């Protein structure tokens, strides 16, 4: 049924339809509305789930780790500092091969404190062993939660999934959402049957000491499963399309890239703005396009290669930066062309939208105009030089 809904409310509704047995979260802007709504659903008796109140994100993550370990479908959500406070548990959840879905309402990182959107929080946890999927709009955010549980709980995966949605832009934005019906959700996502669980009748150990004789294999196994996920994710999205009629590739989306001479690669909600600019420029006869990365982990290097190998000029637009090095998505794209015969002549990297600074259509047009024969290793867009000074003396 199509409804005009706030992103957070829509996510809470789809999570509710997924029937998690345990929800635990600590409020943090801009994630709050999601868990507030879930708490309300539980309090109203509309969702039969245990909502466990905790004193911090570290505890929230620990609670859902424990719940998942006992074989219960679980859910949590957070943002920014909250995700960082969860960080050690985040690695543990993946290390223990526990299925889980977490919503990261993407927000900038302190200091200086900033509650607005960029993607530095989830990007900084890219090596944690979580599958990371980035949503472009509210509908995709909703659908990725459902898809996320299916991927996560599959016996061949058993990895947690982080659904990343841009804070405020998607969490507080309002769009028309086609909300799946319970019957369809139940068909697509049957009740969770754990491959292993903590059970006093049949005791097992999870995440215990692995000395040098054992540790490497635990990491290799996750790394190898991530590679399998590159073929598994599109299978799940194809099945999703059959039930719900919405087609996602799950790894990346190519938008008007056929015959394109200049293409922007990006992730998340900004892809919607880029599509609009692409349409405008195409109407004027400019051969431009977009490649939207949905899955950042696992990173679909082969699909990226196929999508961009014949494009002469590629710009990567990051909403985060690895300070002292390059922008994270740019690094991945460049690595995808390492030692390849076919590659774009120019791969330029741009950073924009940090701490909630709007990436406007003009910002996107500037990226296209700066995508010249001069390769740019890491260019900041919309920078205000007047705010910068060399020293405090």
């Amino acid at each position: 049924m199509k409804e005009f809904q706030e992103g957070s409310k829509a996510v809470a509704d789809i999570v509710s339809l997924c029937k998690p047995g345990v929800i635990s979260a600590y409020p943090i802007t801009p994630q709050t509305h999601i868990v507030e709504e879930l708490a309300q659903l539980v309090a109203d008796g509309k969702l039969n789930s245990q909502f466990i109140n905790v004193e911090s994100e570290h505890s929230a993550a620990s609670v859902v780790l424990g719940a998942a370990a006992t074989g219960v479908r679980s859910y949590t959500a957070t943002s920014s500092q909250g995700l960082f406070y969860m960080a050690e548990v985040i690695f543990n959840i993946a290390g223990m091969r526990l299925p889980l879905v977490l919503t990261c309402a993407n927000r900038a990182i302190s200091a200086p404190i900033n509650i607005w959107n960029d993607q530095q929080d989830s990007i900084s946890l890219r090596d944690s062993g979580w599958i990371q999927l980035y949503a472009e709009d509210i509908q995709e955010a909703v659908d990725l939660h459902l898809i996320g549980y299916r991927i996560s709980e599959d016996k061949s995966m058993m990895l947690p999934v982080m659904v990343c949605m841009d804070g405020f832009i998607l969490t507080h934005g309002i769009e028309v959402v086609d909300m799946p019906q319970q019957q369809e959700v139940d068909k697509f996502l049957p009740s969770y049957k754990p491959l292993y669980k903590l059970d006093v009748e049949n005791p097992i150990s999870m995440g215990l000491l692995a000395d040098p004789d054992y540790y490497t294999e635990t990491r290799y196994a996750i790394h190898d499963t991530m590679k399998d996920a590159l073929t598994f994710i599109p299978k799940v999205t194809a099945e999703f399309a059959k039930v719900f009629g919405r087609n996602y590739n799950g790894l990346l989306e190519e938008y008007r890239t056929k015959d394109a001479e200049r293409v922007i690669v990006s992730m998340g909600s900004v892809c919607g703005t880029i599509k609009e600019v692409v349409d405008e420029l195409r109407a004027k006869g400019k051969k431009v396009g977009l490649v939207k990365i949905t899955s950042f982990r696992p990173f679909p290097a082969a699909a990226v290669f196929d999508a961009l190998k014949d494009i002469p000029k590629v710009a990567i637009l990051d909403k985060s930066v690895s300070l002292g090095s390059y922008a994270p998505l740019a690094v991945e794209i460049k690595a995808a062309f390492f030692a390849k015969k076919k590659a774009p002549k120019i791969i330029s990297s741009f950073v924009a939208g940090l701490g909630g600074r709007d990436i406007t259509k003009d910002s996107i047009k500037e990226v296209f105009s700066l995508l010249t024969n001069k390769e740019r290793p890491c260019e900041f867009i919309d920078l205000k030089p007047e705010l910068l000074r060399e020293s405090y003396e």
Partner: protein
Amino acid sequence: MFGPLIVKAGTSKNNKTGSWRTESRPKFLKKNCIACKMCRVICPEGCITGDQKNSYDCDYAFCKGCGNCAMICPKQDIIMIKEEAKE
């Protein structure tokens, strides 16, 4: 693919953990032992076995070389020797 992570209980018994031992290991001299069992009781790994006088020994596949057994032996009948030393 799964690594050796989700496991049945009892891994501390099944997995050899003696690779932690780096510097020295206990040597049971078996000369003045009075079978007081103190070494067996204090061993944090529970890897010392024995019952009668001069019968005590440890399983080096689990011994971490902490030296507690040598320290507590009232007869100094257990000594710590360099890992590379021969018996």
